[in-house]
Each structure stands twice: as C-alpha cells, then as structure tokens.
C-alpha cells in the first residue's frame, strides 16, 4: 500500500508560512514582473486569475497586476523539504522523495502503529500543518501510480483513499490525461480517436492504440492493469551549495562553509541509507569562473571522512588567489551497504555512532541545535 504526499503550491505556501501577511492573497514565486523569469509557483488565489507555473512573470503580471511577486528563496524551500521528509519518515521507513515537494511512502505494515490508511493520512496531514504550517494532499492506493492519481484528484488540501475493490470504479470515469506519461500530445492523439476517459481507453481495441501510440500503449495498459513504477531511488547525486552574500578570500570562512555543507549533504545521505563513493567540490570565483574537482573515495557516509577529502580538493582549488563567490559539494556513486560495519576501519564505526547521535539530536531539535565549533564563524556572519 502506497501513500503519495504532495505539498500544495509549495514555494508560495512556504512564503506564506514565513510571512502570514501573504496568506489568502494572490502570490507568485518566480521573479519580479519586470524580470525575465517564469512562474515557479502560484497561490490558489493567483491561479484564479489564470496564472499557472511555467508562464512568464510578465504575462502573470498582466493577468493580475495586484498579485505579490517574489523572487523566491530556494534555500528555504530546501530546508522545508527536508523537514517534510523528516516528518514522513516517522510514518514509515520507506520514503522516496521524487521531487522537492512530493514523496511516495510505503505504508505496508503500519496499521498497528497508525491505524487505517485514512487515520494515518489524517495524522500526517495534521503533523505537516502543525510543524510546517503547510497543506499537503494525500492519495492512498495499492500502487504508486494509483496513489499519485488519487492525490491529483484530491488537490488542494485533500485526502483520497482508493480501496482495492474500488480501483476500477475510481479509474473508469477519469480523463486519460491523469495517467502518468499522457501529456498534451498523447492526449490530443487520443482525443482524435474519441478516447477521453480511461473507460474509453480500456474499451479501445489494442491494435488501434498500438497504431496511435506505438509501444507506449503497452505501458499505459500496464498501469491500468495495476502495474507500478519500480521502487528505486531517483537520486543520482546529493548536492549542497551556497552563494556568499559577499565575495571573500577568508579561508577560515570558506572551509567552515564546506564543513557545514558536508554535514548537510551527509545528513541527507544517511537518511537515505546510502554510502557515497565519489565526491565533487565546486567553487565559483568573483569573476564567475567555476571550477570543480572530483575524486573517488572508499565508500562512507561520515562527514568526518568526506570533509577530509573535500578539504584536500578545496585546497587545490584555492590555489588561484581570487575572491570566492560560491562553494558547493556533491556526493555521487551511491551504494547500499551502510549497515555493514567494517572490520578494519574501526574509526568509521566510531564515526557511525557519533553521527547517529548527531542525526537523532538534529531530528528532534533542528539541524542547528548542534554544530561543529569551527562553523561558528558562519553564525557570526549570518550564513547559517
């Protein structure tokens, strides 16, 4: 049984949570109208004026000149996303974030702890509202595909549970474009064949669908028949970077920033039960020249180890004595064996225990509740 949780109008809602004055107003995140940006997120009030994501902000402004336009604070959104993930992991060990504001959760075997799927969903919604001041829509069904469709149908601030014996009944009257992978183009093709609902699709002869859609029709049929996405982690890398408010040559500050970013990235890494085997350090100078260095490392999830390698790469990059504008770290080449302790790397076992304690503390009291002393300089500079 899967639960699909999708935060409503995510970026805008975060802005509203941070600044309650924005609530119940048409708000658009993506850039100021005179800039060249596109709408990344629009509040439901703004959507009433026909504003939707992907639209140039200048056009959004013409549709609703009274809307509040914001550039957006992506660091903040990431932070909210991570807190959202933390909440979800309380309900099941198997949480797959598929984007910044959307996740699938395997809720099999949670009944004794949280009751029926609906009871669990209610609790989850309450928890998200209480801790993040955000609305989340929840769809629950036997497969991820169905839970996603249910979630789409229930938006905004909704909850929809599709019991196994009601699946077909639920699907038949729906528009075909609710199925995954049916975009405007495929939708248009199907419309020309007079196929509008999933019921039409099921009743259409296979041969007709194959001619119209090619091999893709098999995948659609597979989903309708209860097939599902593969469970897999979509993450190929975990990256963290910060642009400094002011360019700097202060090495102490740059290394502190790297340590902070490494801790952040490793925290995410451990939550996904992964170890990393490759590390990239990125640096951008005041002249906007960007340099990266990458190295393979023995598999680990300990920031202590990764920082050691990272600092080595950074030292190399800092040989150019230019002012630094941005520092970033990226972990990649993941492996799944973080649970197995090592015979020889005794130090790693100690790190694992230490980091477990750190993660637990941070889960409870927030990431900044405990920080390495050498990153204190960031706090002084208001960077953390």
């Amino acid at each position, binding site marked *: 049984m899967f639960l699909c949780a999708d935060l409503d109008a995510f970026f805008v809602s975060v802005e509203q949570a941070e600044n309650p004055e924005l609530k119940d107003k048409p708000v658009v995140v993506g850039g100021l109208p005179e800039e060249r940006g596109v709408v990344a997120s629009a509040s439901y009030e703004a959507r009433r004026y026909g504003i939707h994501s992907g639209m140039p902000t200048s056009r959004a402004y013409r549709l609703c000149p009274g809307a509040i336009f914001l550039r957006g604070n992506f660091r903040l959104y990431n932070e909210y996303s991570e807190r959202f993930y933390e909440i979800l992991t309380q309900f*099941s*060990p*198997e949480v797959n974030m598929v984007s910044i504001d959307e996740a699938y959760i*395997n809720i*099999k*075997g*949670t009944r004794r702890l949280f009751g029926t799927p609906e009871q669990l969903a209610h609790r989850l919604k309450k928890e998200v509202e209480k801790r993040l001041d955000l609305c989340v829509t929840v769809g629950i069904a036997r497969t991820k595909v169905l839970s996603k469709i249910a979630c789409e149908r229930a938006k905004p601030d909704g909850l929809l549970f599709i019991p196994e014996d009601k699946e077909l009944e639920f699907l038949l009257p729906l528009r075909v474009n609710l199925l995954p992978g049916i975009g405007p183009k495929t939708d248009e093709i199907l419309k020309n064949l007079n196929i509008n609902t999933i019921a039409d699709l099921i009743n259409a002869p296979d041969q007709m669908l194959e001619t119209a859609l090619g091999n893709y029709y098999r995948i659609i049929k597979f989903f309708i028949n209860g097939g599902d996405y593969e469970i897999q982690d979509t993450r190929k890398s975990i990256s963290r970077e910060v642009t400094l408010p002011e360019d700097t040559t202060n090495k102490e500050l740059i290394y502190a920033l790297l340590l902070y970013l490494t801790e952040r990235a490793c925290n995410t890494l451990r939550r996904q039960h992964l170890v990393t*085997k490759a590390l990239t350090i990125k640096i951008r100078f005041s002249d906007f020249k960007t340099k990266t260095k990458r190295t*393979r490392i*023995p598999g680990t999830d300990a920031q202590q180890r990764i920082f050691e390698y990272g600092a080595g790469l950074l030292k190399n990059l800092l040989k150019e004595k230019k002012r630094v504008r941005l520092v970033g770290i990226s972990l990649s080449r993941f492996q*799944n064996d*973080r*649970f*197995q*302790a*090592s*015979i*020889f*790397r*005794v130090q790693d*076992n100690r790190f*694992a*225990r230490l980091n*477990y*304690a750190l993660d*637990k503390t941070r889960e409870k009291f927030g990431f900044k509740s405990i920080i390495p002393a050498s990153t204190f300089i960031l706090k002084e500079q208001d960077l953390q």
Partner: protein
Amino acid sequence: MEFKIQKNVLEKTMGSVVKIIPPKSTYTILQNIILEAKDNTIAIQGTDLDIFVKKVVPAEVKEPGKVLIPGKKILEITRESNIEEIKFKLKELNLQISAGSAHFNIPSLDPQEFPEIPEFPEKKWFELSIGELGEMVNSTIFMVARDISRRPMNGVLIQIKDDELRFVTTDGARLALNKKKKIENPGELIVATKLFDLITANKPEEKVALYIEERMMGVKFMDTTIIARLIEGPYPKYEEVIPKSFTGNCTIEKELLTGALKRVSLVSSPQIKNVKFEFQESSVMLSASSPDFGEAKEKVPCVYEGEKLGIWFNAGFLLEILRHISAQDVIMQLTSQSSAALVRPKTEEELIYLLMPLRIDGWD
C-alpha cells in the same frame, strides 16, 4: 617441428593452460599459446600477463621446434578428434594437424611476438600436498573482496609466521583465517585467487612447492610450473582485529542454526539481509522483519555462557561461513553489539572466521 601425441594427454593439458587465457583482451596475442617440442616432450605455455603457466608432457618428437598458435582453437580441434593419437607438423608458417582422416592447416605466429616469460623464482619457500593446499584455499577464498578499490584485499595472503602457515582473506566486513603447523622460513605474499584454480583440480596426494621472490612467486607440481605476479601490499593488519577475549560464548549445532537462519532471513530486507540474534542462557532467538514481507522469529537451542546480548548480522554472510564449516557444532564468540563475532568449528581451532555485525539502530 614435428611430433605425435596422445589425444587425451593433449586435451587435458591444453584444457588447463587455456583456462588462464583471458576471454577478451585488447592484447590479442594472449589468445595464443606456445607449443615447444624437444627431447620427446611437448611444453605448452600460456599467460594472462599476471600468471604464466607451463606444462610439459611426453610426446614422440621427430623434429624439435617452437610455434605460437591460437590456444582455444587447438583445444577444440583436439577435443573433437575421434582418434587416439594426433600428429602435428610445422610447414613454413602453417601448423598441419592430422587426426585420423581429418586434416587441418592452421596459420601460426612467430613465437618472438609472445610476451617475455619471467625467470622462475630461485628461492624455494615450502612444500605441501595439493590436498592440504586445496583445503586451505577452499575454506578462505570465498571471502576475497570483489571491490577493486582495495587491491590487497582482492588476493589471498599466504604467510608463515610463528611456525604456522596461514591463509588469510577478507572483504572488509568478514575475515577468514586458516592455519597449519609448519616450521619453515617466515615470509608472506599476496596472490590473486585464479592461481589456485590451476592447482587444486589435481591429484590431492601430489606435492606442490612454492617459490618466492620480491614481485613473483613460483609454483611447481607434477608436470606444471607456474609463475605468478604478486599483488602489492601491505595487507590489512589482520592480527590486530582478531579479538583475544570474549564476554559471550555460544556452542550451537550447525544444521539447526543454518536451517533457522535460512527461514528467518526469508522476510528480512533483501538488500541488507538483517537478522537479529538474541543470545540467552540456553537458546538464541533469531528474528527479522521488513515492511514488505512481515516478520519472523525462531528459537534455536544452544549452550551460551555470558551476558544476554542482542546483535544484528547479515544472514547471507553468516550462511556462507557456515557452509564452509564441516564440523557438526560451531562456536560463536561475542563481545558486544558493535564488535566482531568469531565463528569457528567446535572441533578445530585452526580455522576461524570473523564477522562484523550490522549497524542497525545505530548501536545504542
């Protein structure tokens, strides 16, 4: 060059030399073997550049000579021949093969093109029987690391120390050590596992002699000489990680443990294979669970001395160790939730396995 040779002799010998030929290599010359006829013997040599193998077998040599020919093809021709004796004759650059009424004409290459074969190491180290070697190898080799990032762990450590011959392997999470009394010169080397495939398939009562040099080792047995390039060390300091004392001692019937572990691990997470062991006075409780498959537990009787202890292991790793123990009872010795367990047959102390636990719940 001209000679006659028994089909079954040639087939067997070629078979084991061809084994070493790399299946696909950019260095295509390695697909070939050297055939050399002199003094009523045939010498067959092949290499993958890490291991050079040479076998010498009797033949009826009419005219001595040396030729480089495609190894696998000659083996196939030999195998498919339906006659007892095969004739070889080099005519210009073609090797003519007559097997009864079948005739082949195989182009050959200049033996000069073959990579240079290193000198056989001079210094003899020690000797043992193929059977003894096989036993040391079989009990340890399965644990060699496959991950190529830790090169020394991709080989077997052979060591003579404190009048013991020791074979050591590890994959980082487990370690195997098999030792045997042997009063010889101390020394050690690390060598790739494929070397042993060439040796252990032979008659167990025959002797095998090991030679040692800085970068090479030599092996001699029966009609075979092998030169193997060593893997560069240092090997991880294995002695330091073998616990000297334990707080918990468990004696358990191997078959009972194996059966229960196989059953309980059916519902563990397929990637982690985590099974919890809870040791108490007269039993150990195995349990596992995962969101997809539910939960399972099984109590196995045992004799346990020590404090109660809960510890997680990778069931796959432990089952593999148990498969390599032939004794009826095994001993598991433990210290804590976060330190290595020692597993060994009850009846012998020469063979030990270490297994690190899983870090579930962060080890509270």
